[in-house]
């Protein structure tokens, strides 16, 4: 780890001021990603501005619009186990609990979760080219071992995936990200928060330099009756997703009124295809229709030598997870397959 100066911020204003005082500065939240990257010497901030004692944004509360506001500094564990989240947004609760481990979720914050970096092995290996780590150096994953890489929205510069589980749930729920920055505050629809790599894979999201995430807002509808999160991986727990699926359904009897399907582990951002959700509206909730929706979602998917299996895996995971959503009580701990 490089030498750095440590500063503790007392408020958002204080954090913005301390951050702008020059040099290459980073915000510190739970530290579970940042400290790790610093230990590998992949990130070398000369100043760390610790956000953990900022006054405010440590709570979860109901909004006047009937939704829920998740403070950026609330831990992933406290969010997943919060009574309002468990009751009204169980899909989000399941998605969070499918990620990392209990200890990490006790440390990781909601803001930090959105900003975690890819787990591409070559990004972590400073000895090899990687456009995300060192723009213009090349991508080692395309000719390399690409089992965990993306099948949708890839570019010639980068085929990495965004590894968060929580964000797959947030994408399905149509959350909004609230940020404050040097030039004021703004709100970003979740679908616009993360981005595809294009020819600038070093940029993961649309947050601007210096901006701080203060909260994540959930709209009133939490799909709390019919929902499911399924995570498929190389070991049953404490591993990143090969493919994950978040499903929320609104049903009239067995007819779908509204469907939400988001995929994780397949792209540089949580993957949602509105056309597939619109296709499902008005259809009966059965595996044939879910299978047709899966075909629409995976349209345009391109496999690489070691991950082409993910295309079929994702299709089957979508169908299975939608069937699990019809029967949420059947779900097992750790977002494992249950039907």
């Amino acid at each position: 780890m490089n030498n750095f100066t440590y500063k503790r911020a007392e408020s958002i204003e204080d954090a913005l001021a301390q951050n702008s005082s020059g040099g290459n500065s980073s915000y510190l939240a739970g530290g579970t990603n940042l400290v790790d990257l610093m230990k590998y010497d992949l990130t070398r901030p000369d100043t760390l501005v610790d956000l953990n004692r900022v006054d405010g944004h440590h709570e979860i509360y109901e909004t006047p619009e009937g939704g829920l506001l998740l403070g950026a500094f609330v831990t992933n564990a406290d969010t997943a186990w919060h009574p309002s989240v468990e009751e009204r947004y169980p899909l989000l609760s399941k998605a969070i609990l499918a990620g990392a481990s209990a200890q990490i979720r006790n440390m990781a914050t909601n803001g930090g979760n959105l900003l975690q970096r890819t787990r591409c092995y070559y990004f972590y290996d400073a000895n090899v080219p990687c456009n995300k780590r060192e723009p213009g150096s090349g991508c080692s994953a395309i000719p390399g071992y690409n089992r965990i890489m993306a099948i949708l929205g890839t570019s010639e510069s980068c085929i990495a995936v965004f590894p968060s589980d929580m964000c797959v749930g947030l994408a399905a729920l149509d959350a909004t990200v609230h940020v404050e920055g040097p030039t004021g505050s703004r709100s970003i629809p979740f679908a616009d928060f993360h981005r595809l790599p294009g020819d600038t894979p070093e940029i993961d999201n649309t947050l601007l330099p210096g901006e701080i995430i203060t909260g994540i807002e959930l709209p009133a509808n939490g799909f709390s009756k019919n929902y499911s999160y399924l995570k498929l991986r190389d070991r049953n727990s404490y591993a990143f997703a090969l493919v994950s699926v978040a499903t929320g359904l609104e049903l009239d009897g067995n007819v779908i009124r509204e469907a939400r399907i988001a995929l994780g582990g397949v792209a540089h951002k949580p993957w949602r295809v509105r056309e597939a959700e619109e296709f499902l509206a008005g259809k009966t909730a059965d595996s044939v229709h879910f299978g047709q929706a899966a075909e629409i979602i995976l349209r345009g998917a391109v496999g690489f030598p070691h991950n082409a299996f993910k295309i079929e895996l994702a299709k089957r995971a979508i169908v299975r997870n939608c069937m699990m959503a019809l029967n949420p009580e059947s779900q097992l701990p750790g977002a494992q397959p249950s039907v």
Partner: protein
Amino acid sequence: MLTELTEPTTLKASQPVNLVVNGTPLQLNLLPWVSLLDALRDYSGLTGTKKGCDHGQCGACTVICDGKRVLSCLSLAISKDGSEITTIEGIAPEGDLHPLQKAFIEHDAFQCGYCTPGQICSAIGMMKEGKAKTRAEVKELMSGNLCRCGANTNIIDAIMEVQNQSVHE
């Protein structure tokens, strides 16, 4: 830590960090990049907490910080200024064993023992959280602690025994 040996540290001064470790207030003087794990092991003489991977991947370094199980390897000590930490050395009075320690011995829940302090601190944290009722839930919520000797089945047995005892108490 390697960085301290290879980079001049004169530019950045150590800063006071106050921790209450196992009930004892400690005032340490640390450089900002010292992890809580190194603060315990190298600066406080508490080597019960183990360094497995130093990257958040194994759980060997699990301690209880302000009542919650966390990974000390990914925590900067300076960020924890003012916190109360419990390590394996502090879970039972001197000369006594914690019920989990007894159960681990009874169930042969270790071989080399390297993961054990983290397993036990993690299990204490898990019981306090109160979310794991069934064996499947305990397995899932203990998955952040790897045992490379493969004692996992016995570890879960030991935890289930203590968990069932506390339910009946």
